[in-house]
């Protein structure tokens, strides 16, 4: 089995306009930066992105906002991007704000074949408006729908040609769960290793969830808030 494709460009070439795409990462940490750049270059438009954040101006998903390829974002926090704000306020960009844990669980549920679930999060808030509320053991819960996508673009530290993946530190975040919830999951990896090199005891994402693997040519790994202690 060999899921390796030669380039990020090849890996995203069949993404059509109007597709729904999950994109891993928290802020700029663990984002699939090579695949995002490849989608920009390939040029599909009217895309819906499921992503916790929307990048910053000119980097991460901010690159695809600059080129107006994004129609809608499903996110929990989008505050770091002026172009995002401009497009949102002018009505060019549709935004569905979802609590971060509800977002993660919607994706987990979607990937696990669960169409909907009840959560305490957001009860009595704007988030619950129009949604079914049920009481279990005298506590109110809001029904949320599972989420799936046409594609997931994710970033891992190490991967093999079966699609087995290992993430590094807090660069896992939404990557592992998103891998489970798309028809086609494309993983870019820092290190492409041979089958057997990854200890099966310590694989985060089993290869069954991954359809394409790309060895990213380079990773900028931009830091959003470099904070150091005085020694």
């Amino acid at each position, binding site marked *: 089995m060999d899921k390796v494709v030669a380039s990020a460009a090849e890996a995203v070439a069949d993404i059509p306009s109007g597709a729904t795409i999950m994109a891993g990462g928290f802020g700029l940490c663990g984002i699939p930066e090579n695949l995002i750049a490849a989608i920009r270059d390939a040029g599909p438009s009217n895309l819906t992105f499921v992503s916790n954040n929307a990048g910053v101006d000119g980097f991460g998903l901010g690159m695809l906002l600059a080129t107006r390829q994004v129609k809608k974002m499903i996110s929990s926090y989008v505050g770091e991007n002026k172009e995002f704000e401009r497009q949102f306020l002018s009505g060019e960009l549709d935004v569905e704000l979802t609590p971060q844990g509800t977002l993660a669980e919607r994706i987990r549920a979607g990937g696990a074949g669960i169409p909907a679930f009840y959560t*305490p999060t957001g009860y009595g808030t704007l988030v619950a408006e129009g949604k079914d509320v049920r009481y279990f053991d005298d506590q109110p819960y809001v029904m949320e729908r599972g989420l799936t996508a046409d594609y997931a673009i994710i970033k891992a530290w190490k991967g093999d040609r079966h699609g087995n993946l290992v993430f590094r530190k*807090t660069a896992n975040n939404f990557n592992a769960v998103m891998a489970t919830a798309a028809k086609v999951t494309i993983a870019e990896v820092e290190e492409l290793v041979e089958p057997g090199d990854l200890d099966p005891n310590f694989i985060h994402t089993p290869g069954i969830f991954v359809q394409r693997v790309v060895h990213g040519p380079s990773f900028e790994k931009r830091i959003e808030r470099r904070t150091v202690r005085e020694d």
Partner: protein
Amino acid sequence: MSREENRLRIVRRAARELQDGFYVNLGIGIPTMVANHVPDGIDIVLQSENGLLGIGPFPSEAEVDADLINAGKQTVTIQDGGSFFGSHDSFAMIRGGHINLAILGAMQVSATGDLANWMIPGKMVKGMGGAMDLVAGVKKIIVVMDHTSKHGDPKFLPECSLPLTGTNVVDMIITNLGVFRRADHDSPFQLIELAPGVSEEDIANSTTAKYEVALEKA
């Protein structure tokens, strides 16, 4: 008293609520400062909702790692005994009641413990991040905030006028003027402490929420 001194006192007072063995989530901003004032002999583990248990100090220049950040997107380190995990597991910890305490900022708190801290209508909405999940799932919620807005308006109110983060979720409020606590989510808040130089009347003049007075000896 200066704004900085007030903040430091709020942070130190909040740190006294930490108990040995607690798993704790600290909100972005002033709550994060509580980590610098953990009392001696108290061993806690800090959770960051982007997928980290055991947040360590900020890194030295040499230790900076783009793959190791906190929920405020700042570079951090991990303590021995810490762990990394995905967002789905992180929020299972939070929503599933496995975190003992969260300390959060607030724009408004109501007399019945409603919290508003994510959105001001008419202003750019950035999103709620993980705040709604934290207040829905963490066992104890402490709010740290200035007692009034920068315009002098009370922030501890009969009802929140801003969009809510959660209903009936706040257990304790620590402000620059005093401390309010309630025994459970069916009980009213009680004023239990006054900041130095602050009178009961000062609190009453800056508060529109109803509360009981049950001052404890300092």
